[in-house]
């Protein structure tokens, strides 16, 4: 049980505190309800570029990192399709430094042209390093526009293309900042050695005077039900063929999410899962075979990804995967498989929440979903998954018409 207290400021900032005095440190996690799904389709990658700008200094903090380091802390951030998330871990007696820093960049960020120019260049290199200069690095740049036709999940958080980052300007940066970086779009979660009433007082002091921005409801196009099999083939300079198959499923709060999250653990969460046992060891079709949920808030994907052993025909490999998935739609998983998945869930959850930083993020994320207490109650949502639900969910999900496939092949030499 992760206990916490909650408080909302009058400007809309939600504050959550979990006291864990087994650590001398404290983590502040500030989650902004803004991700790449909130971008203009002609200016993608912006939310992530903006995350970089958040480290470029604000009115009272010329260099963001300096006070963090002086306070003995470390900090970072990430952007995904749904959110942008910032965290600072530092000795508990310097907690107020973190709140001061976060409040200053929430309200008075330096958005000068020169800062923007540098970060555009850095992000361009990040795009190259992580997506273009890596064998298999562009798979998600290919998969998203194949699986999605209208929803903004059709682009990755890094953006569709380097050219979008190159043309970002400071006017759009200001607009993005005003619209999304406001206390009413943020959740502040604090975990570690921290007394709730003290944190609430500090939050009032540092964030209380920041005005909320006008709340503009998020209106995103709903992805229509996929009704036809989609498939593309690409050739790249890679040594082995990779097969990617993606199926549409429900959002983070749907029942299907929990059913399929547990199911994918049964299939490939550990070495004795069905896919490593059957597709890798017994049939020797793949050298690895993995299936997982993309995990977004809006309806997401179940993604299979496997690298073929040399000499294996991709159609044969694909048929074998479909065969395993179809079996799930008719035959129940065994009691032993369910028991194993539940045991694993229990211990992996404990491992994850050993870290105060993970608890801080988990609380903020569940609060965004609707209730921070989800961090505690979602155990029941996993433990209650039945073999019948898995059959039902599999039958609806793993159909050919709901599937987008990439055949990622070595260049013909």
């Amino acid at each position: 049980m992760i206990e916490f207290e909650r408080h909302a400021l009058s400007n809309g900032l939600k504050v959550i505190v979990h006291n864990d005095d087994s650590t001398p440190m404290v983590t502040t996690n500030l989650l902004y309800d803004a991700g790449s799904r909130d971008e203009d389709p002609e200016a993608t990658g912006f939310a992530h570029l903006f995350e970089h700008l958040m480290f470029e200094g604000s009115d009272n903090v010329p260099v963001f990192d300096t006070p963090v380091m002086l306070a003995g802390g470390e900090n970072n951030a990430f952007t995904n399709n749904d959110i942008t998330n910032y965290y600072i871990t530092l000795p508990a007696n310097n907690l107020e430094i973190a709140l001061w820093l976060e409040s200053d960049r929430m309200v008075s960020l330096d958005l000068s042209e020169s800062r923007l120019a540098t970060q555009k260049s850095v992000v361009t290199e990040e795009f190259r390093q992580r997506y273009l200069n890596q064998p298999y690095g562009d798979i998600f740049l290919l998969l998203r526009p194949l699986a999605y036709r209208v929803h903004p999940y059709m682009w990755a958080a890094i953006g569709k293309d380097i050219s979008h980052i190159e043309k970002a300007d400071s006017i759009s940066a200001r607009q993005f900042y005003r619209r999304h970086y406001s206390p009413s779009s943020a959740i502040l979660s604090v975990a570690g050695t921290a007394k709730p009433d003290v944190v609430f007082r500090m939050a009032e002091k540092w964030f209380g005077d920041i005005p909320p921005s006008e709340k503009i409801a998020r209106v995103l196009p709903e992805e229509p039900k996929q009704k036809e099999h989609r498939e593309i083939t690409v050739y790249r300079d890679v040594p082995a063929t990779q097969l990617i198959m993606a199926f549409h499923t429900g959002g983070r709060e749907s029942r299907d999410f929990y059913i399929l999250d547990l199911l994918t653990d049964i299939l490939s969460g550990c070495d004795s899962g069905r896919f490593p046992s059957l597709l890798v060891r017994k049939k020797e079709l793949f050298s690895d075979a993995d299936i997982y949920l993309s995990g977004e808030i809006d309806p997401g994907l179940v993604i299979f990804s496997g690298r073929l052993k040399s000499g294996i025909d991709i159609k044969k490999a694909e048929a074998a995967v479909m065969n395993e998935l179809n079996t799930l739609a008719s035959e129940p998983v065994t009691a032993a498989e369910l028991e194993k998945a539940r045991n694993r869930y229990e211990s992996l959850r404990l491992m994850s929440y050993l870290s105060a930083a993970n608890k801080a993020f988990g609380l903020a994320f569940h609060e965004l979903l609707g209730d921070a207490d989800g961090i505690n109650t979602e155990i029941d949502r996993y433990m209650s998954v039945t073999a019948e639900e898995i059959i039902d969910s599999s039958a609806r999900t793993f159909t050919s018409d709901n599937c987008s496939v990439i055949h990622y092949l070595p260049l013909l030499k």
Partner: protein
Amino acid sequence: MKRHNVQQPPVIITPSAGETAFPETVSLSNGVPVYLLGKGTVDLLRIEFVADAGQRREKVHMASSTANAMLTEGSGNHDAITLNDLIDSTGAVFNHSADKETASLIMITLSRKLEEVTALAEEVLFHPSFPETEFRMLIDKRIQAFLTGRQKTSVIGREEYYRALCGNDNPYGRVTKLEDYQSITTEAIREFHSLHYRPDNIYITVAGRDPEKALPVLEKYFSGNGTGLWHEPDMPELAFETAKTGRIFAEVGNSVQSAVRMGWAGISRDHPDYQGLQVANMILGGYFGSRLMRNIREEKGYTYGINSVVGAFHGLGYIAIMTEVANNYREETLMEIKKEIIKLCRDEVGQDELSIVRNHFMGEIARMFDGPFNSAETIRGIIDYNTGHDYFARFVETVKTITPGKIKELFNTYFNIDNSFEIIAGAK
């Protein structure tokens, strides 16, 4: 938007490294040392078994990593699928890995499954069967990974770095070739395993809540006898070629970025300058606000990241600066790296910058000892390198007392740009 209510910033409290004491040590009846790291808050135990079975012990290249990777691929009692199913069903996680120095198996288990999981760990560590089918599968998979690595500038850059540093005949520097996968055999792995995974040639760390409760179970499964106790590593005499100087270029197909590295031989961990050199390195390229990051990422925008490290194997220290940049920035990048080094050799760092680095180190050390699981990782470094139980106490002292003059002296002694070597891996 200006803040309408600007307040005095809070005062920063100078961070302290906190408790860095070496943990309580006990022994099993066969003499195997067990280090106990308590104060866990949840019902999980992390038990790590470390064997003196790293790459440095190899006579056949890859024997160490292959033997380690094969530990869970079948035992005298169970085939690979059954064995993995037994492990996974308990909810436990087994992580096994081999590095240049030692090899280890980490088991993380729910406390209530301790005995069951410990019995499996014993089976995995000491009774692997190394079946031929699983061995072939592993090798095939590794060949795929190896071939993928040929297209990664970062991988080629790293390999060329170690080769330049240690020479190709030294187990620390040896670069894997495709032929190595063809020549390794299960016999070679069996031999490596029987020589280096012995019941009494390991040490154990136990971390979590009430770690002493694990002792009877460890005694039951791990008190067997062998031919010699875990000891301060009795190192083979390894020949290190002196690091080469000058430029090494390795072509990587159509890469859009190049890996750029610069390096020197360094000093051993027991050298009186070793800890001071850590501080100097932090200033140059050891954190987000370092000289290199500020110049090459934050001012020039040449790279997503650049950093430098100071480390040491047994018998050889090393210094490395590494980054990945667009092909057309690589010469400018090397030039800027050298400029930053020259500045640090010429001018003393200011007290402000030194304070940032000092405080950052204190926070780092506090995090390294934050909770039993982190502490277990930290003390493994102390034991494996035999750096002394007071290593971090001394380190804290060094960080607190080092002067700008000493730092400048360290740069002049160890970062001589005229005898460095440079690696570029990328397109022509």
